[in-house]
C-alpha cells in the first residue's frame, strides 16, 4: 500500500512541476473573419464617453463550410505591443488560455456570416493604452476556431488609443485634505494642551 501511495505522490508532484500544455494555440487559428472598428488610426478615445462601432463578417474568399462549426463570436479589446512593453501581465502567449493580450470583452454574439455590427461605449475601467480589436469565432465546446482583427499580423497598423479616467474626484480630494488636517490639528492640539497643563501645575 505504501509503494503505490508513494508513486502517486511522486507522479502528482512531477505533473505539477511539468507545464500543462493542452489547449488551443493562436498560431493554429485561421484569420477568416474581417473585422473593422470605427476609430481611425491614432484616434484618442475617452473612457466612459466615446464609442466604438465594430463590424464583422465572414471572409467569403474562404470556401463555404469553413464556418460550419462557428457558434459564437466574441469581440475583444486588445493591447498593442507598445502597451505590453515592460508589463508582463499583458504578455502575448501562443496558448490562448494563458494569453493576456485581449482581456477586455466588448460583446459576444451568436454567429452569422454577415451584417454584424455593435456599438460599444468604452467602459470606465479600461486603462490608458494603445489598442486594436479582435474577434474570435468559438465553437460549441467554447474553443476558439478562427479569428479576425482590425490590425495586421504584426499588430502595427490601425491602432487607436484610449485615455482612461483618472479615478480622482474633487469630493475625494477635499475629504482627504479634511481628514489630514484633522489628524495634524488634533496632534498639535493635544501637545499644546498638555504643555500648558504641565506649565500650570509647576
Amino acid at each position, binding site marked *: 500500500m505504501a509503494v503505490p501511495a508513494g508513486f502517486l505522490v511522486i507522479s502528482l508532484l512531477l505533473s505539477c512541476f511539468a507545464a500543462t500544455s493542452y489547449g488551443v494555440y493562436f498560431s493554429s487559428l485561421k484569420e477568416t473573419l474581417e473585422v473593422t472598428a470605427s476609430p481611425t488610426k491614432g484616434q484618442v478615445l475617452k473612457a466612459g464617453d466615446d464609442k466604438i462601432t465594430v463590424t464583422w463578417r465572414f471572409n467569403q474568399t474562404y470556401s463555404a463550410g469553413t464556418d460550419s462549426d462557428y457558434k459564437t463570436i466574441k469581440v475583444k479589446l486588445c493591447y498593442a505591443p507598445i502597451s505590453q512593453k515592460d508589463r508582463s501581465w499583458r504578455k502575448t502567449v501562443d496558448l490562448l488560455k494563458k494569453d493576456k493580450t485581449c482581456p477586455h470583452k466588448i460583446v459576444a454574439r451568436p454567429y452569422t456570416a454577415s451584417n454584424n455590427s455593435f456599438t460599444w461605449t468604452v467602459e470606465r475601467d479600461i486603462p490608458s493604452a494603445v489598442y486594436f480589436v479582435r474577434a474570435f469565432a468559438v465553437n460549441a465546446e467554447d474553443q476558439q476556431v478562427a479569428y479576425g482583427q482590425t490590425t495586421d499580423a504584426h499588430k502595427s497598423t490601425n491602432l487607436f488609443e484610449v485615455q482612461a479616467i483618472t479615478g480622482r474626484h474633487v469630493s475625494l480630494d477635499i475629504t482627504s485634505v479634511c481628514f489630514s488636517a484633522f489628524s495634524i490639528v488634533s496632534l498639535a492640539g493635544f501637545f499644546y494642551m*498638555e504643555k500648558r497643563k504641565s506649565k500650570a501645575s509647576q
Partner: protein
Amino acid sequence: MPQVEGSPGSSMHGVTGREPVLAFSVASPAVPTDTTAKFALPVDSEHKAKIFKLFSLANPHMRTFHLSWLSFFTTFVSTFAAAPLVPIIRDNLNLTKSDIGNAGVASVSGSIFSRLAMGAVCDMLGPRYGCAFLIMLSAPTVFCMSFVENASGYIAVRFMIGFSLATFVSCQYWMSTMFNSKIIGLVNGTAAGWGNMGGGATQLLMPVLFEIIKKAGATPFTAWRIAFFIPGWLNAIMGILVLTLGQDLPDGNLGALQKKGDVAKDKFGKVLWYAVTNYRTWIFVLLYGYSMGVELTIDNVIAEYFYDRFDLKLHLAGIIAATFGMANIIARPFGGFTSDFMAKRFGMRGRLWNLWLLQTAGGIFCLCLGLVNSLPLAITFMILFSVGAQAACGATFGIIPFISRRSLGIISGMTGAGGNFGSGLTQLVFFANASFSTAKGLSYMGIMIICCTLPVSLVHFPQWGSMFFPPSNDNVKGSEEHYYVSEWSEEEKLKGMHQGSLKFAENSRSERGRKVASVSTPPNTTPNYV
C-alpha cells in the same frame, strides 16, 4: 556604584527577546515586588510590571502593550496597503514593472533612516509622543493616495508612508519602560511579531474593502482610492488612542516626572565604535536582510504574483498572500523557542546552527515557490517559506544580545535597518526588472538567501566557538568576562562602568550548553570597586 543608565541604545535593551525567552513572570525573590505600589499587576521597584498578562487591559502596563503593538500593526497595514491592490493601481496609473518595483523599494527605504532617528525622538519626547507623532503625521501621507495620478506620485507617496515603520522603535522603547527586564524578552518579541502581522492583514483587508466599495457603485479606479481612507483613519484613531489612553512611564508622563539621581551617560561615539568594529554586527546586518528583508519583499510582491500567475480573483490572491504575513503570530516566537532549545544542549553553537538551518530552509522553499506551476503546491511552499524566514528573524534576535553588551541598542538598530535595506535591494534586483518574470525573481531570491546565509558560519565567539570550530582553550581569552569587558577602556573600568557587562558575562555562561563546568576566575579581571 554608577550605572550606565540612559546610554545610547539602552532603551533598546530587551528588543532582542533574549532575556530570557518565554519567561512570563519573574519570581519574587529574584526581583523584589514593591508592595506599596497600587497597580493591577505586581511591579518591581521601578514600578515596571513583573508579569505579562496577555488578555488584560490593565492600566498602565498591559494597556501600553496593546496600544503599542496595535500602533506598529497599523503602520504595517498602511505601508503595505498598496501591495494587494497593485493589479488595479497599475492599470489606473499606467505603471510599468520597474515602476511597481521601485515603489516597493521606496516603501521600505524611508524607515531605514526614520528608525535610526526614532530612538533620539523617544529620548526627547517620550515613547508616547514619539509613537503618536509618527502615526498621526503619516496619516496625511496615506490620504495623499487619493491625489496620485502617475508613477512618480505613486512612488513618492509610498516612500512617505514607509517612514511610519519606525514605530517599531517606539513600540519596543515603550515596553521597556513598562516591563521588567527579565520578561521584556517575551513582551518585545510578541509585540514585534504581532506588529509584523499587519503586513499580512492588509493583504486580506484591502481587497475586501475594494470589493465592497465597488459593489457600492464606485468604478475600480476610484474604489481603490477610497479604500485607502481606511488605513488613514486607523492611523489617526490609533494616534488619538495613544495620546488619550497611554502614558510614558508607570507613574505618569515624561514631562510631569523629574529625573532621579545622577547617571553616568555613555558616550555615543564609543558605543557606535564598538558596534561598528565588531565584525559579527555586519554579518547579522547581512543575514537579517535575508530573513526580515525577504519577508518585507514578499509582503510587497506576493499578492500580485498569485493574481497574475494563477489567474485568481483579487480577494482570493489577497487571502493567500495574507497567510504569509499572518504566520508571524507563531513563526517568529517559534524561531526564538528553537534557538533556546538548541542553546540548552549545544549553547551558542546550537543557536548558530539553528539560525542557519531555518534561514536556509526558507531559501530552499522560496526557490521552489518560484518553480512550481500548480496553485496548491505554490501555497504549500509559500507557507513553508514564511515559517523558515520568520523563524529565522526570531532566531536572529536570539543571538544578537550576545554580540555586545555595551552596544546592544545600536547593533539591534543596525540589524533592523539591515532588514529594510535587504528588502529594498532584493526588490530592486529581482522584482523591478522587466527582463525576467516574478517567478524567476522568486527563485533567484531563494538562491541568494541560501548564499547570504552562509556567512553565519564565520561568526565565532572565543568563549563559545562557532558552527565549525570549538571555543578557545585559553583560560583568559576563552572567558565570557574577557569578551564583554574588552569593550571598556582601563579608565572606564576604573570608573566601574563595566559592571553591567561583568554581570551579563556571568549570566551568559549558559551559552556554553550542557557542559557549563565551573570556570575558574581568570586572572587580571578588574576587581569590583564599590
